[in-house]
């Protein structure tokens, strides 16, 4: 749902940009790259290596290679906080949890890619149905008094349920608080299934939704690890930049294949 770009040099993060989009990923990628270059004050030819990742990674026209997002996240999180052993990645339509082994390698992972339950998209759908922008309502959800329990995990059914609750006289914010809990508890479920090994870091767009994070931390009984103040939404892009710096583009295809195999073998849900 948004394109992210990060530019690093030998010393660290130079600039990053986030661009929400509804159109074609190619255009969003070009635009967000242009913005990040402008912010960093460099030109495209000044970038030695450029890697892309994520849902539209293959659509990035000017990339030197495509790397899987889990590899990018693992690389970035390891760099930002070496104590992290469990990474929870929840974006608009991505939802993965994976372990980082003591050796720093990628451990067990679980991915949901057939269902929107627990994803940012779920919150988007309900906030659209309740006709309140996500930004406004997400902040208010935590202050709500009586929160209804939302049974449904499917956004289509949850939307009907939310509308019924409002017809029953519930306040919009209370209903949304219920939806927020449903999302957070769904995420917690997958994290528990894979196993909570502290420290735990949360990345992706949903990591910026304070009510979701608060409920999730309470549910799991922990505080998410600090990632050095880097925007949780750009961690994957930052990881891709780190991999580019390491010269990983040469065998990115091999890397991509082996990770895909790993997903197939392990926790595909």
């Amino acid at each position: 749902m948004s394109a992210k770009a990060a530019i690093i040099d030998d010393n660290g993060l130079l600039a990053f940009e986030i661009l929400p989009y509804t159109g074609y990923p190619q255009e969003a990628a070009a635009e967000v790259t242009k913005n990040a270059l402008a912010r960093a004050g460099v030109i495209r030819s000044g970038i030695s290596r450029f890697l892309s990742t994520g849902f539209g990674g293959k659509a990035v026209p000017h990339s030197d290679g495509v790397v899987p997002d889990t590899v990018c996240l693992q690389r970035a999180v390891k760099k930002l906080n070496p104590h992290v052993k469990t990474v929870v990645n929840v974006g608009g339509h991505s939802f993965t949890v994976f372990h980082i082994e003591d050796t720093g390698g990628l451990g067990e992972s679980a991915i949901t890619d057939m269902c929107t339950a627990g994803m940012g998209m779920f919150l988007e759908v309900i906030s659209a149905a309740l006709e309140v922008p996500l930004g406004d309502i997400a902040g208010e959800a935590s202050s709500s008094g009586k929160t209804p329990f939302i049974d449904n995990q499917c956004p289509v059914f949850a939307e009907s349920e939310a509308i019924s609750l409002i017809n029953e006289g519930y306040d919009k914010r209370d209903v949304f608080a219920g939806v927020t809990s449903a999302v957070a508890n769904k995420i917690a479920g997958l994290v528990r299934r894979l196993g909570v090994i502290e420290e735990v870091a949360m990345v992706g767009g949903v990591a910026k939704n304070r009510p979701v994070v608060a409920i999730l931390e309470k549910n799991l009984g922990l505080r998410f690890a600090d990632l050095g103040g880097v925007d949780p939404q750009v961690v994957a892009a930052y990881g891709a930049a780190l991999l580019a710096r390491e010269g990983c583009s040469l065998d990115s295809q091999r890397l991509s294949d082996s990770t895909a195999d790993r997903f197939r073998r392990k926790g595909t849900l």
Partner: protein
Amino acid sequence: MLTAGCDIGALTTKAAVIRDDVLLGCEVVPSRAKAVQSAADVMDRLLARMGLSYGQLDHCISTGYGRNLVTFANSNMSEISCHARGAHWLIPSVRTVIDGGGQDCKAIRVSEQGRLVDFRMNTKCAAGTGKALELMARSLGVDVSELGPLSLRSKDPVIMNKPCCILMQIEVKRLVFEGKDRADIAAGANDMVAREIMHLVRDVGQENDIAVTGGVANNAGLVRCLEGYLGVASVRFDVDPQLMGAIGAAVLAAERCRGAVADRSGNSVMQ
């Protein structure tokens, strides 16, 4: 004997009136926020069109969402029994009914006598429902009624692999931006929905003949996909397949009346 059935769906509300085993008339209206209002709407309209009044109805059965709230109904029954009864009443060779509604989908097995044997229903996920088709149509910029005819023009259907209708919608948008043929995308969407429905059919067990009912039955492309997976053509109704629940409710109402009459004369006919 004059009986009526009223089926309140998530998206449309339907009514049917039968007299002595003959279908007199039916009506479909879009559902409103309150189930009771939708039911009154459709029944008022149908009775007015036929020149009938509520007082003339011997029995009326309501079914669907909020069926227990319909004040003019004498009793209510589950929409599963109603769909099964309606399809079997019109075509007695029917043994499996695939009922695709706005937000639910069911595969129903029917006995030779038209009684419910077993069923499977989606409970957690909207994949395989009319809602999924609506979202796909919206992403394609067409009305949901155009999805079927459009998909039949496809020469090379796209292959989709995400059952979730929200994720499918994103996929459809991406394909549109990539410039893929709309007919091919529509055919791919129909195929994905059909595959979801087939999970339920396989689980309950397929027995021929097969009837496809509910709003999704009006999507000819989807029905063709289903028939491909079923390996057999589905039966064709002379009436709108959306009406099957309402018709079944009216048939069951008639049976209930006969049962009551028989009971009074000392025979137990109630099946």
